[in-house]
């Protein structure tokens, strides 16, 4: 029996919290009738939200005002120095005149080729430019899900061959350029890309080895990780560069790039291995037991059950390591390879006119590093979002 509620009908009792439709107190209307879901009240306009978040409390308001003041002052100071009073032309005298007052972006205009390409022969700069563009382009398409097909592997092999051939030269009219002269951005990109690509599988192998039951393998992996983590990258590069040739027969000395690459790879793999091991420890034991009861071998279990879950949980840590490797390439200056940071020092130290404007130079390469690191960072977030797809309830 339903009770119709109309405004004209005399109410027995006013509507209350317990009985919103009004009615005799104690007599519930429509027993068992379901309340259909409604939308929550609106959250409030943007202005209201901002006001609540920024000026909600006295302390909050004070902080907001202080922060705005600091940001405003710093922003204005930088704007003045970096844009309004800056010198854009590659003119040394103008820059000297504006010292302390305005930035000298002319140093970038004047020296950018030296910074970007190092000691590479001036007339052949199109070669490292093309090689870098190819590498960056391939990196970008490798990130797209659409391109995760078998041909990508072949494409990578081709790109790497073209990269090295183009940089090296010595055929088809291209002048041969020894690896000691390679420098700048292409060197940074190449070392970072290959370093990451080689360190990652090595790290997974070492992490699995560290957790294995075989005592010899386990000790070897532990020794490797502790030794490498115990010394700074500079020492590793030093050792790789000068000790590596001692291990080989007299007279044979591997290419300096190879030595440096081995150093970077071994260093990065040790840190990555511990991150991967953390992920492996986070996989519940029940997963391995389930795989065992299904009859999967150890390697099948690792590859199909454990590693996918382990690596998915440590994506932030892994990307963190990758970003660090990208910037650690700047240490190869110690073995006289002038990648981006080294090339900057080379460019400015040699020229007395431009030496005082190091800050502008560093800001320039900082921007390049920042763009690269930011791209990796955002990509990492995308990867994490992809992995969340199947997990959300």
């Amino acid at each position, binding site marked *: 029996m339903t009770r119709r509620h109309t405004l004209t009908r005399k109410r027995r009792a006013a509507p209350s919290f317990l009985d919103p439709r009004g009615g005799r107190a104690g007599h519930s209307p429509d027993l068992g009738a379901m309340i259909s879901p409604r939308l929550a009240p609106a959250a409030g306009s943007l202005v209201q939200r901002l006001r609540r978040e920024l000026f909600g409390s006295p302390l909050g308001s004070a902080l907001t005002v202080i922060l705005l003041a600091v940001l405003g002052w710093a922003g204005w100071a930088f704007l003045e120095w970096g844009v309004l009073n800056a010198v854009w032309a590659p003119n040394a005298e103008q820059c000297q005149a504006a010292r302390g007052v305005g930035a000298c972006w002319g140093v970038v205009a004047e020296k950018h080729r030296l910074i970007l390409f190092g000691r590479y022969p001036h007339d052949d700069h199109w070669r490292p430019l093309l090689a870098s563009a190819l590498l960056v382009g391939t990196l970008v398409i490798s990130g797209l899900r659409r391109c995760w097909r078998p041909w990508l592997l072949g494409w990578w092999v081709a790109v790497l061959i073209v990269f090295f051939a183009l940089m090296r030269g010595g055929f088809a009219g291209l002048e041969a350029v020894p690896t000691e002269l390679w420098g700048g951005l292409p060197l940074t990109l190449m070392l970072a890309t290959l370093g990451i690509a080689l360190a990652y599988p090595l790290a997974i192998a070492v992490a699995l080895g560290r957790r294995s039951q075989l005592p010899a393998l386990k000790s070897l992996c532990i020794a490797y990780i502790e030794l490498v983590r115990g010394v700074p990258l500079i020492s590793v590069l030093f050792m790789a560069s000068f000790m590596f040739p001692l291990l080989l027969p007299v007279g044979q000395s591997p290419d300096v790039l190879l030595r440096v690459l081995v150093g970077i790879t071994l260093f990065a793999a040790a840190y990555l291995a511990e991150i991967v091991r953390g992920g492996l420890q986070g996989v*519940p034991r*029940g*997963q391995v*037991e*389930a795989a*065992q*009861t*299904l*009859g*999967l071998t150890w390697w*099948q279990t690792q590859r*199909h*059950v454990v590693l*996918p*879950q382990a690596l*998915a949980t440590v994506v932030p840590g892994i990307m963190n390591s990758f970003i660090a490797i990208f910037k650690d390439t700047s240490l190869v200056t110690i073995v006289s390879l002038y990648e981006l940071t080294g090339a900057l020092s080379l460019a400015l130290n040699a020229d007395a006119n431009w030496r005082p404007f190091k800050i502008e130079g560093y800001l320039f390469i900082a921007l390049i590093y920042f763009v690269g690191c930011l791209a990796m960072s955002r990509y990492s977030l995308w990867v994490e979002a992809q*992995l969340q797809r*199947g*997990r*959300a*309830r």
Partner: protein
Amino acid sequence: MDTPIIRFEQVNKWYGRQFHVLRDIDLSVARGERIVVCGPSGSGKSTLIRCINALEPYQSGRLTVDGHLLGIEHEEDPRAIDQVRRQVGMVFQQFNLFPHLSVLDNLMLAPTLVAKVGKAEARERAMAQLARVRIAEQADKFPLQLSGGQQQRVAIARALCLQPQIMLFDEPTSALDPEMIKEVLDVMTELAGQGMTMLCVTHEMAFARAVADRVLFMDEGQIVEEGAPQAFFSEPRTERGRAFLSKVLGH
């Protein structure tokens, strides 16, 4: 078939040197027999069935499963273990589905990798098992998108995809909401009705009464009582059996 499919002969297991978790276990399970193992927690019930597919090693005695001898610790034969694991399926309390694979992929993984079955046939088998546990429409979902009862049924289907001869259930309904226990027990009852050899550790006494051929009551690592469910539930012969039943059947 006269030879028992599972045979424990004076099997003993210790954790470390002190903790004697399985004591002189003698048990023969015939093909097609349905056994329910019950007892207080810590009595070794789970350990007992985990020995059957070599998830736990044992230190003395003799355990034979489907004609293969599972050796004592450090003397195991890996090939025997492999063979046994293909014949024995297991369902866990925590489901242990692979969360990064869809339901269908969960079911297809083992047949393609272990039994070397082709993808198409693996998919057919998977869909057939999903239909058997009445969950075929969830094939493309991920485990975490399903309810507990649905996940457990998928786990049962996954174990069945390898066409095992023996199914082990380790407290399959203990982690489920009461509403979902029935759907899982229904599947297990159906399975029992189809002649599967089953060993089930469970607290669901009604299920035991309805389905089991034999009930084992374990306490402190040994099989204290065994017998037909009717006999055990109405007239337990030992003091410990009576004490246990009074606690469990009381509510």
